[in-house]
């Protein structure tokens, strides 16, 4: 029966990694972040979408694939290096099945062999090295809605110049078009960081909606009639969807959260440390230092020492993921019934997560999602899964509210990206933006080497704007790497700026930087011009 559902569930996965690509090194540690996420999250998610589609299970999911991630997925060098990465893992997995034929680890060893073979099959035979084509396929079927993000995950509330905000959005929308063949309907503002008024630049790119942390909506003005359970329209007409905390808690609560179950895979016991050194050495980085290699044979087990962890049982863990998916769905049904009664209308519950938490951090998280999609499709009628676009076409009438400045970071505002570890960056970043705007205004029609230099300046500025650098400094993880990256982009920009202003561009210098920082092959530096930003703000 049509319209029987009592409300909507919109599942949103934010997939992002900073642009990390170092052609100047044969083997670069931080590039592994991308390869790990490919093996554990992005390709397994595609695997789920493939299986659900083959079985005829309808599903809806919204995923941001940020421009840096798109550019890495599309990059020939990283594609080749990823091939090397999974091939080595597969080789080790195959050896491991033989080595463990008489041990209690045989099942888990076989699991990795199957997993890496499937990765190879999907990567090579299905997508021919281009996973973006896979995601696009499901978007074209209407099951997956891919949304974009600021060009380099730039943190917009700390930008002083509107030209910078416009450039982040416009570059992202243009990049999206080249990968997915149409404009983005939605955007994930990096860190859910919203600054009132920035929505006009979204509107200028035809973007219809974005997401906010809970208090971005409920501290909005006037008071939102339905809290976070209906989107609101900013004065510009762009819709803002608010995050539901109850479903976030359901997954991640320390007391009752799913990933801590004793039957799930233990993250901290890794073959990179457990295997004989000479045997595992070919699978480590060139420096030969033992590190995690992503293959783990134990389950969480309980409150025991790492050396007391029991062997992982894939079948048992998968059953648990099914049971947790059932629990999640049950709770959403009750929540939606309750909200429906209380609000007198169909609520939309927006469950937002970092994509990499599924599979990479919570290994069984991808199975959980697969079971959830199946159960929602087959086992209930209370909930209908929708994408935000579908919701807006079903319910185009929404309250007009000016949302509050907010982020999803610690304490809810900008402190994660503005504190004693990283506040020194902004003086330099703002100076670069100011100079970039100056260049774009000064040279409205450059060509030849000047155009190349200006385009590269634009790449360096946006790479420096990535919120990841400030974030990594705050959490103290890869603080040295992120500082070096910010400093490197600043130096490269300043070097080019001085050469351009002195009318003495060195082709060798420029060529070297172009080779290193090749994000946005089609960038047009004029995206930073004042006239363009003003035109966008005026809705022209």
């Amino acid at each position, binding site marked *: 029966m049509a319209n029987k559902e009592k409300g909507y569930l919109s599942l949103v996965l934010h997939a992002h990694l900073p642009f990390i690509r170092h052609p100047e090194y044969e083997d670069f540690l931080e590039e592994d972040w991308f390869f790990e996420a490919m093996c554990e999250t992005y390709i397994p998610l595609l695997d789920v979408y493939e299986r659900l589609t083959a079985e005829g299970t309808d599903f809806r999911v919204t995923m941001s694939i940020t421009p840096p991630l798109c550019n890495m997925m599309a990059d020939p060098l990283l594609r080749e290096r990823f091939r090397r990465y999974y091939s080595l893992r597969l080789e080790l997995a195959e050896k491991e099945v033989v080595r463990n034929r008489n041990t209690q680890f045989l099942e888990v060893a076989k699991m990795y062999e199957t997993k890496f073979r499937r990765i190879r099959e999907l990567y090579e035979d299905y997508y021919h090295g281009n996973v973006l084509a896979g995601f696009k396929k499901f978007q074209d079927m209407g099951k997956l809605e891919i949304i974009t993000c600021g060009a380099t995950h730039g943190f917009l509330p700390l930008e002083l110049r509107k030209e910078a905000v416009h450039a982040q959005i416009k570059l992202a929308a243009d990049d999206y078009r080249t990968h997915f063949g149409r404009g983005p309907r939605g955007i994930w503002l990096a860190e859910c960081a919203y600054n009132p008024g920035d929505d006009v630049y979204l509107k200028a790119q035809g973007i219809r909606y974005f997401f906010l942390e809970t208090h971005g909506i*409920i501290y909005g003005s*006037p008071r939102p009639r339905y809290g976070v359970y209906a989107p609101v329209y900013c004065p510009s007409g762009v819709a803002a969807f608010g995050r539901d905390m109850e479903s976030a808690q359901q997954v991640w609560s320390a007391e009752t959260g799913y*990933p801590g179950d004793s039957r799930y895979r233990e993250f901290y016991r890794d073959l990179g440390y457990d295997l004989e050194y000479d045997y595992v050495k070919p699978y480590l980085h060139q420096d030969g230092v033992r590190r995690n290699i992503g293959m783990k044979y134990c389950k969480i087990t309980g409150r025991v020492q790492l050396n007391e962890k029991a062997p992982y049982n894939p079948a048992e863990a998968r059953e648990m993921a099914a049971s947790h998916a059932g629990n999640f769905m049950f709770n959403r049904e009750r929540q939606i019934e309750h909200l429906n009664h209380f609000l007198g209308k169909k609520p939309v519950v927006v469950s937002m997560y970092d994509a990499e938490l599924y599979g990479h951090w919570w290994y069984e998280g991808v199975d959980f999602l697969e079971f959830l999609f199946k159960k929602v499709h087959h086992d209930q009628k209370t909930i209908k899964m929708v994408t935000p676009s579908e919701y807006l076409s079903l319910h185009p009438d929404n309250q007009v509210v000016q949302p509050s*400045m907010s982020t999803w970071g610690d304490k*809810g*505002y900008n402190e994660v990206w503005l504190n004693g570890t990283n506040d020194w960056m*902004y003086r330099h970043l703002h100076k670069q933006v100011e100079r970039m705007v100056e260049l774009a205004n000064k040279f409205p029609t450059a060509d030849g080497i000047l155009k190349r230099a200006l385009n590269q300046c634009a790449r360096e500025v946006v790479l420096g704007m990535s919120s990841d650098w400030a974030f990594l400094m705050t959490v103290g993880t890869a603080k040295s790497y992120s*500082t070096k990256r910010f400093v490197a982009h600043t130096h490269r920009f300043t070097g080019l700026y001085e050469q351009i202003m002195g009318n003495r561009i060195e082709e060798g210098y420029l060529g070297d930087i172009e080779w290193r920082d090749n994000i946005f092959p089609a960038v047009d530096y004029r995206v930073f011009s004042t006239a363009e930003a003003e035109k966008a703000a005026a809705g022209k």
Partner: protein
Amino acid sequence: MTSSGKINKGNNAPEAEHKALPENYGTTEASLLPRDPNWMFIYWEITENSKKEACRLHGADIFQKGRQVIRVREVAEGDAAGKYFDIPVMHDAKSWYVNVQESGRAYCCEVGLALPDGAFVSLVRTNTVNLPAGRVSDVTDEKWMAVTADFDKLLQLSGVEYIGKGSGEVAKSLAQRWEMLRTVFSRASSWGVSSMAAPQAPQKQAEKKFWLVADCELILYGATEPDAFVTVSGRKVNLNPDGTFSMRFALPDGIVDLPIKAVSKDETDSREIDIKVTRATTTDGK
């Protein structure tokens, strides 16, 4: 890439490498950035030329006579002169965190000299920053009025108690994840000397630092006739133009008694509501 990292109290210094960047750009300028409802960050540069120019205009001893301050101005609507206050600070500090009592307002700052006669010499002025209110809006529309009584409940359903806790448990899981990433990656960066460090035994590497923090505050709000006289616990409360009011309290363990009294303008009528809140915190002591 996860994005809900916890602000780490022990990690508050920048990496030395940032000194590779220029200290000055040779222009007098200042910028103001929003951090949260009550804090802003200002950075500035004042060139020698600007200082000379100030001496030329205001006297060679102006820097001896004047106190170096940041003047924090509330930007009022229209032409009305806004409120301001001064923060004494050495100009050489070049950056500062500015605390303001009133959230939800617009501010700008000037770095300059406060003179004994009360005059102010401005050396550089920042952009204006609009701070978020950090609380539920006082603005309600007509349509809203019918359901005001339920807003409280809606807030609970919306997860208001998690605000500002870095998405609560989410951040906690992520912090563990980052803790792990740090042990795995930071010592072993491909750049810098860290990659030379010897690997540690896996057991030690994998120690989990588990933690939990939680606290709560109290927000009281209400509405009456816009011209009424309202007290909470005997203290006068300033009403918003539409008669609404709200206050934020620290909430220590124990009983907090909040008698609210409203008296009509002509003092012929009054209403009282008494709210008692009990907080009891227990921890498992681990």
